[in-house]
């Protein structure tokens, strides 16, 4: 053991400039060597170690349990704690530092074609129900598409239509306006403007209209307020099975 201690001092001198550390080690109030051993073993182990395994590696006569308790107490206020997991021991970062151990990142994603189509219908036709959206698009809207749109925060359920089944009505949010740099929904181009920009064919049949969109939160005559819990509902999976012609 003497030679080991010597070696340790050597290394300590090489690696650390703080000479007082070496002195501290030799001082009477030095930590028991077994704490160093336990520390090293637990740190390097890829899995929690039980007391028996640890004891096998300790010099004879070491009270492993007492040493572990002391180590645990020592590390309790630190950023790393010694924790017991199913009667085994392991170092873990302190629970309150979970925030430190996570990194948040944003990733930019393009909306799918289906999502942008649904969004545009909601924007122009709001308040609009899912069935109405499907009527316009001619295809079933997948739950995922609405979920993504709800996740963007650009649309929200705003009420329920006073029709059988009381379907949810959807509308756009302020975040929608901000995303598309619109001062208000009135800034969405109307029929003539859409024709002017060439987006709509000029040979459209008479009677073809583009609604004047409004995100006035006041419920319409045929709408009634959301029920409590409707927001979660809007994100819940749809009950009916969805066919292959989703989009």
């Amino acid at each position, binding site marked *: 053991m003497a030679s080991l201690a010597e070696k340790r001092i050597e290394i300590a001198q090489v690696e650390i400039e703080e000479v007082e550390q070496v002195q501290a080690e030799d001082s009477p109030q030095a930590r028991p060597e077994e704490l160093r051993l336990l520390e090293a073993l637990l740190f390097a182990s890829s899995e929690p170690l039980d007391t028996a395994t640890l004891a096998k590696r300790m010099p004879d006569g070491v009270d492993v349990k007492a040493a572990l308790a002391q180590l645990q107490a020592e590390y309790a206020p630190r950023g790393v704690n010694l924790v017991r997991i199913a009667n085994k021991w392991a170092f873990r*970062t302190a629970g309150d530092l979970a925030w430190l151990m996570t990194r948040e*990142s*944003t990733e930019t*994603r393009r*909306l799918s074609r289906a999502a942008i*189509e649904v969004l545009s219908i909601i924007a122009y036709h709001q308040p609009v129900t899912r069935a109405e959206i499907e009527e316009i698009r001619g295809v079933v809207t997948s739950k995922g598409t609405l979920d993504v749109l709800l996740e963007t925060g650009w649309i929200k359920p705003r009420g329920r239509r006073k029709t059988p089944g009381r379907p949810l009505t959807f509308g756009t949010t302020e975040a929608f306006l901000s995303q598309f740099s619109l001062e208000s929904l009135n800034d969405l181009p109307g029929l003539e403007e859409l024709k002017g920009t060439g987006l709509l064919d000029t040979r459209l049949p008479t009677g073809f209209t583009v609604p004047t969109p409004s995100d006035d939160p006041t419920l319409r005559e045929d709408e009634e307020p959301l029920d409590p819990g409707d927001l979660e509902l809007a994100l819940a999976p749809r009950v009916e099975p969805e066919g292959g012609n989703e989009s």
Partner: protein
Amino acid sequence: MSAEILSFETGRPAELAEGEPALVVDVEGYEGPLDLLLALARQQKVDLAKISILALADQYLQFIEAARKIRLELAADYLVMAAWLAFLKSRLLLPEPPTAEGPSAEEMATALANRLRRLEAIREAANRLMNRPQFRRDIFPRGNPEVIAEIRHPKYTATLYDLLTAYAVQRQQNVLASVHLARRTVWSLVEARASLERIVGMVDTEQWSCLDDYLLRYVVDPTQRATVFASSFAAALELVREGEMELNQKEAFAPIYFRKRLPQPAPDAVSAPDVQ
């Protein structure tokens, strides 16, 4: 890494050692002639800087001589070094020529001594390096690292242009949806007549042929059958009227036979063969 085994692949000549008491010829451990020289130099037990190169050269040559005596296959390196040392030795023993070109014998000897010192120094350094606590041999990293979890927040993008295009396309799609009647492919009379003329030209003049058989052979697409038959029939009537061909049908809905009208007017219509 057995490549270090220099040239004594025949094995250690241990059994020969008895005959060579002064020198144990064991080259297996040496890393080339310089290494051998260094080992010999160490036997001089003096500072390499003060080593007698002459003595060293003698030892080396002696070693090589011994090795050759027992017919060990020495690598070329060793022989080259031996030749060089023999040359150096002669230079060291002879008086320096007055106008020597290149380094003097003394300089050559010093250079060799320096090479040996350098090799020894790097060996010592290597030794100390390898004795340092090594990663994953003596010192260890965190055995169970905790990763920094990444929480990804998707941020969706879309432009107003995307939005308006999507809207316009959909609205237009549904409003402008008009009934598209599948265009029927029609066999024109002209086409039918041209084909019939070709068919009539092909068949034996005397022979009645079944019109249906020919048409079916030419018209592969079953959807076109009706139009082909209708047009062909009309064209056939036309050809009959013009005296180009004759038609024969036993009864209503029976197969229609045709043959080329002979140039001379036949007084009696030849009765149709009783086919099948």
